[in-house]
């Protein structure tokens, strides 16, 4: 720590150059924060549902399954609770305001304790046939208040021939588990209401969710559940909720590859830029380093000073960049209501970012530091 003053002073010896370099580091880590948040959102989606199995059509998710499977699933040993749902989607006021709606069975909130809702609103939800609940952020985005009617324009026909579905907002919830936060953008209604009102697909569901508390039962239950509809016209595929999310998102994009490619290009550029800055900074200070060595700074200390300078530059820039990314993500999530699969800036993203900064700092600092360490005092002092 006693060398911090010296390192800091050396870093800001050329203030303008350092500020511009710092800005490029900030930008790189802002991008890193945003992209890693997306990657993290994809990677951890559904992690909380380790003891939940999702059963859907084997052919394609969303193809209707008969509700009658419900009773047969209940008989599978290891299954303690089941809920089911059908989905529809609509737009609110403006075609750009896309809102997915899921109609769930009564046991939905029992299976999803991550959805935090007040007891009174939970009761209202179960009592109101056309009732829906929305996340606090979604309600905030569209200025909804409990008691509001929410008209949605959909492509799903009602029995009366209309495609307009109107729901009653009876409560708001908050999802505490970061891995489930992508569900913040969905409006949750009642399956009974959707089933009753829709023109087609009566008494069918899009998926079932089965609670299997014992992890050892998961594979067996999944096999037995799928066996119940084997060779029928509605064969099922049962996977854990985590695997379901991973599979579903994997069909959208290989986000890890995309993020890796972008970040690779960004950090390669950053390496060149900061490497050049550090090399230039050390080249300019050769006589000063020679002076430090002359007055007794060992080669190891000189090496440490340059490395410290390089790492400090990267740590400063990365901390700022990640802080800006956190602010942007927070703002995006609160404005959009949900930022699809963009996780908040969790501790792991901060740690990954800062660790990356240290690594980049060490890599760009090592050659200038070696140069400083190895310089011959008499040559450097005489300008050779």
């Amino acid at each position, binding site marked *: 720590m006693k060398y911090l003053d010296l390192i800091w002073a050396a870093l800001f010896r050329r203030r303008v150059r350092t500020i511009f370099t710092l800005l490029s580091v900030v930008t790189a880590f802002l991008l890193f924060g945003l992209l890693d948040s997306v990657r993290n959102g994809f990677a951890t989606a559904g992690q909380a549902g380790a003891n939940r199995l999702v059963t859907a059509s084997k052919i394609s998710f969303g193809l209707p399954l008969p509700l009658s499977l419900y009773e047969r699933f209940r008989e599978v040993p290891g299954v303690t609770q089941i809920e089911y749902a059908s989905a529809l989607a609509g737009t609110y006021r403006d075609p750009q305001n896309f809102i997915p709606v899921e109609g769930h069975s009564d046991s939905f909130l029992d299976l999803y304790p991550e959805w935090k809702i007040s007891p009174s609103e939970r009761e209202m939800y179960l009592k109101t046939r056309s009732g829906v609940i929305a996340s606090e952020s979604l309600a905030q985005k569209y200025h909804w208040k409990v008691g509001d009617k929410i008209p949605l324009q959909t492509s799903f026909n009602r029995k009366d021939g209309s495609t307009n579905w109107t729901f009653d907002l009876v409560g708001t919830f908050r999802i505490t588990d970061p891995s489930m936060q992508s569900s913040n953008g969905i409006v949750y209604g009642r399956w009974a209401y959707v089933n009753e009102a829709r023109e087609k697909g009566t008494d069918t569901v899009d998926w079932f969710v089965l609670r299997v508390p014992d992890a050892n039962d998961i594979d067996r239950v999944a096999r037995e559940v799928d066996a119940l509809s084997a060779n029928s016209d509605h064969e099922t595929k049962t996977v854990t909720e985590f695997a379901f999310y991973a599979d579903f998102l994997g069909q959208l994009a290989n986000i890890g590859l995309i993020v890796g490619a972008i970040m690779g290009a960004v950090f390669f550029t950053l390496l060149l830029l900061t490497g050049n800055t550090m090399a230039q900074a050390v080249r300019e200070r050769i006589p*000063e380093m020679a002076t430090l060595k002359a007055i*007794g700074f060992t080669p190891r200390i000189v090496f440490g000073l340059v490395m410290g300078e390089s790492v400090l530059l990267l740590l400063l820039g990365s901390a700022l960049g990640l802080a800006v990314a956190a602010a942007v993500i927070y703002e995006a999530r609160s404005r959009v209501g949900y930022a699809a699969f963009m996780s908040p800036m969790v501790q792991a993203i901060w740690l990954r970012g800062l660790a990356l900064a240290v690594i980049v700092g060490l890599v760009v600092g090592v050659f200038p530091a070696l140069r400083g360490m190895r310089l011959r005092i008499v040559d450097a002092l005489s300008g050779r």
Partner: protein
Amino acid sequence: MGTLIEIRNLSKVYERGRQKVEVLHHINLDVADGDFVALMGPSGSGKTTLLNLIGGLDSPTDGGVAIADTRIDRLSESALAKWRASNVGFVFQFYNLLPMLSARKNVELPLLLTKLSAAQRKRNAGTALKLVGLDERAAHKPTELSGGQQQRVAIARAIISDPMLLICDEPTGDLDRQSAGEVLTLLQLLNRDYGKTVVMVTHDIKAAEYARHTLYLEKGTLVESQGAMADLPGVRP
């Protein structure tokens, strides 16, 4: 008064490409503890090379250098750095202060290598700056000081660790006559009142007059010595 610097059969050869240039030839020299020696000679005579070898900044090709009975030519680079930190203070022609640090922070630099606390370092730096008459300019950066003041800051930095030996390479070479006089008087004070042994390279005869002894180097060989050699023991070219 004992011998502080003992140089025996010292040679230094530089290799410039395929060419070998012998800068110092078999120098033998003793300097007494507490002496103030001026080293003079024409350009290229090897003055600075000899000074660098005495200060442990360079290593000889042949022969040995012992300072206070320590064979510094046998120390590793790291050990030599530690030895310099506690035994030698350097004063350079162009001051060699770090431009981004204040005068006080520059003076504190050698103390970073000690176990002193920040408060102690600050206090000691203040004392050293007071000794050189610059305690009121402690917060100034080198660019805000005159050449003479910068050199005095460099002297404060050189003495902050209380070294036994001060190595001064043309300390007045970049100064006007008045500032040069102030700097030399200061070096004389450090030698006389604080017992520091001073070895100074200079081109300036007037500067050399501040020393107790003057040595002449020519083509890498000590050719002559002047000064009150009879009065003081220890200098035997």
